[in-house]
């Protein structure tokens, strides 16, 4: 009996671990700003900032978008789910703006923790990180 219980326990543990792993693999993404930014924003407003179509949020505050470097998973997901563009589509989109001098893509920051640090220190920056990395030093504008 205790043997069976042990097996069940182990199984539950494995399942829980798997759930935990999968949820971390598909953790939510939080769009973060400095706590002093009180405006709210729609997905469209955020996409406009990250696509260089606008430099401000409705209400007038100027925000500089920053991205997470590399073809890392979080950036690909952010591009696909929020900006609605595949990585190669987005790259072509930016090359159209960059080489016509119209806009520059968000700067790539080497890690999510560095993004957190920068946004926490700069009232004029907007970034995105995994929700589980969010701390009190920033405000979550949107998560998905």
């Amino acid at each position, binding site marked *: 009996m205790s043997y069976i219980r042990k097996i069940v326990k182990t199984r539950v543990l494995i399942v829980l671990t798997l759930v935990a792993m999968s949820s971390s693999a598909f953790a939510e993404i939080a769009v973060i700003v400095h706590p002093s930014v009180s405006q709210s924003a729609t997905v469209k407003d955020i996409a406009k900032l990250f696509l260089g179509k606008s430099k401000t949020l409705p209400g007038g505050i100027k925000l500089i978008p920053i991205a997470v470097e590399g073809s890392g998973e979080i950036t690909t997901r952010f591009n696909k789910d929020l900006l609605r563009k595949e990585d190669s589509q987005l790259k*072509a989109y930016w090359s159209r703006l960059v080489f016509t*001098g119209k806009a520059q893509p968000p700067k790539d920051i080497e890690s999510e923790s560095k993004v957190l640090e920068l946004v926490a220190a700069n009232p004029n920056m907007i970034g995105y990180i995994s929700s589980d990395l969010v701390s009190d030093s920033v405000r979550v504008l949107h998560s998905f």
Partner: protein
Amino acid sequence: MIFNNKGAGYISILALCSAPWFAEANSDIRINGFGSIAAGYANDTTTFRNSDYESLLEFKPGSRFGLQMTADLGDGLAATAQVLAKGEDDFKPEFEWAYLSYDVAENTTARAGRLRIPFYKYSDFLDVGYAYTFVTPPKAMYSLEFSSFDGLGLIHRFELGDYELSANVNFGTVDDTFFESTTPTDGKLENFAGINLQMSRDFFSAYVAYFRAELEIPVALIETAAADLEAFGATPEQASSLKIDGDEATFIGAGFSFDYEDIIVNAEYSQIEVKNALDLVSDEWYLMAGYRMGLLTPYMIYETTENKRNTTTASTFSPLLAPSVQDAYDSLRFGYDGMTLGVRYDFHHSAALKVQFTRFDGIYDVSSGYGSLDDKESLNSFLTSIDFVF
């Protein structure tokens, strides 16, 4: 497309090459680059002016490298320079863009210097192959031989309901070598002015463009013919009606594109007219459709161009001279259509491989003798390129 102030390019490319280490030290300077390695083949040794390749597999014509430097000087002021080295010019670096821009207001940017003329949808980034689906935009439309001007530009972005609009107003001059592929002549476009108005909403975008200028292009052949006609009794006004001597030229263009889910549809139309000169009004358009399947994007393009016969100018000459004038006009007849099948493969996050096959049909290029209205030519062409950005 080709500029002749070649000296300046050399210095700048050296400056740009040494810049990357500097870019890291100063975050306000950004360096971006692009390039294309292209190869092509056509199944005819006769050069067709809208196909850069001949019967051999050639690498040079479509290959090019570009470097751009943008320095943010703060408070909305920025300096941008783009140097381009094209294979067809033996990779001599030349300035395509060089300008100062200033954000006059939140949504308004003024620019001064050397700028691209926003004739077509792809004009602004014509050389950045990575930015578009095909190997080259259809030459039936993209055949104007100059692409930049020197002067002022104002870009204003605004919203109208759910539509995002952008107006690009330009004024300046163009100094260039015109008719490069037929009768290369140094000339000028003066009081060049126009507007390109774009609108977009979600998956739809469209534009209309209008430009005008006064053309001063003393093509030797025309100048000689006009002098001969005068010697045979034509008035100076009649001679001038052939010469490109301060004549008004107009460009009208329009286009739209859909990019919905994975379907891309794109069409453009333009009409070019030089008034009171030995030139014919031409109409050109193309329709392109593509389908994005992950990393592969197969596409097809139909393109066509045709100029119209002019009989009115010849009729103003005396019966003795009219036939030769009519002959001169008729020798400019040009037209063809083309059907392209191709595929773009995004094999790398910063590079794409493209392959396309084009069947040109109904070619009549009377002045070069490649096809006539009664005996039109056909040509197959194959193009491939690797386009990248960095």
